[in-house]
């Protein structure tokens, strides 16, 4: 046997509750983060990801409480991200019980924080989260792709997908790896919330640009979407939210289905 593909439920947390938006907007309540974490862990999730989207001065305190409470009930790894800007933010997450810290906007604003985190906590703790979106204003300096006769490049977006950076995703993942990232959490803004399937073109190209693990995120609406992304790219993990939150498919059900379709999973 060998390393399995990881199935990762994601919990977007705002003010202590799990929420899920469509294309980063229209937020619905989906439950208590600690209860859901325990449920997913018991059902056989391989890992969990929490993204705290609370934007307030209280954030550090709410994250600390969340991390402690989650770490007390589960015995699988979990990553926490959202608003991480400094070593202190990361320490607050890691020392309270999380295994990895996700850093997104903070890494773009201050790339050397990736290296500082790697040196202090080890590479495996550092997950660089990237929100990617197609930009149809192509120029020569970017890695250009074609789909349905249209040319575009993948642009890194920050502040929860609200602001473009002009940075090419393919270049950024290579830089992030060199700086000390241990893993890439790659979300397609174009696909997020659509339930239309993962962004295979994006995922495949990112996976082939780095030698660290990559988690695909955004667009999963059914177990077949996971099969597609695992078969069409060498991605290491698939993250999803809505298919697990609303009981359409339990974690166990999804994993059994993947196994039946020859995807190596832990069951």
């Amino acid at each position, binding site marked *: *046997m060998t390393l399995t593909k990881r199935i990762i439920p994601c919990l977007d947390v705002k003010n202590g509750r799990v929420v899920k938006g469509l294309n980063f907007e229209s937020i619905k309540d989906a439950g208590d983060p600690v209860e859901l974490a325990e449920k997913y862990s018991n059902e056989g999730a391989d890992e969990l990801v929490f993204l705290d989207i609370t934007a307030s001065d209280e954030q550090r305190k709410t994250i600390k409480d969340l991390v402690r409470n989650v770490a007390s009930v589960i015995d699988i790894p979990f990553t926490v991200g959202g608003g991480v800007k400094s070593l202190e933010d990361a320490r607050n997450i890691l020392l309270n019980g999380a295994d990895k810290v996700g850093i997104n906007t903070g890494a773009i604003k201050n790339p050397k924080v990736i290296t500082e985190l790697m040196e202090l906590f*080890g590479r495996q703790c550092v997950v660089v989260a990237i929100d990617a979106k197609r930009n149809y204003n192509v120029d020569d300096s970017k890695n250009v792709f074609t789909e349905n006769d249209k040319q575009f490049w993948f642009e890194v977006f920050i502040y929860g997908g609200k602001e473009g950076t002009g940075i090419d995703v393919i270049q950024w993942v290579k830089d992030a790896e060199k700086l000390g990232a241990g893993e890439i959490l790659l979300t397609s803004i174009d696909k997020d919330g659509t339930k239309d399937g993962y962004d295979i073109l994006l995922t495949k190209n990112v996976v082939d640009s780095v030698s660290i693990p990559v988690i695909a995120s955004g667009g999963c609406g059914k177990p077949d979407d996971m099969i597609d992304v695992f078969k069409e790219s060498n991605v290491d993990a698939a993250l999803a939210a809505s298919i697990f939150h609303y009981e359409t498919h339990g974690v166990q059900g999804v994993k059994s289905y993947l196994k039946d379709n020859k995807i190596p999973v832990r069951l």
Partner: protein
Amino acid sequence: MVSVAIFDYGAGNIFSLKNSLEKVGATVDVITNFDDTNTYSGLLLPGVGNFDPAMNSIRDFSKIQFKEYVGNMPVMGICLGMEMFFEKSEEGKEKGLNVIDGEVIILPSSMKVPHMGWNNLEIKKPGKILEGVENDSWVYFVHSYRVKPESNDVITAESDYGIKVPAVVEQDNFYGTQFHPEKSSTVGKIMLENFLKECKK
């Protein structure tokens, strides 16, 4: 009730390990040096951090040396903690604890590094930590380096990641796991219980 200590290098998640040990019935103290008299039945070197800073924190903050402090007490090294049992590591320049002969080398570049995720254990021979653990059990790995003991006799389980990665080592009172038992669900729990059983002896 068995009382154990976790050595905190000051750079990582030890909350999960502490919590897991408490759940299986241990009283756990977190220590940052070896200055106080050793009243514990076991010591754990946790698995988060970087080789040199972690070695420095073990060596520099205490008046007494590691080997002297632990004596015959069971010691469990997890991931980085197990790597520190050896003489040296390609991750750093500092000397290791040197309680098991061998070194720590980087994983082959033909594979994705870190080796991150759930992989199976191939049990090579019976060991105290592996008691009650079935062959092929899933455990959670996150590491970029692997140990290369001078003698393969110390390896009780391996995992396949392109090459055979030593997953569990045992020598005398030193027990090491390359994976994280505190993150390996029910299988990990069995191993922590096994370690505590040794501590009680």
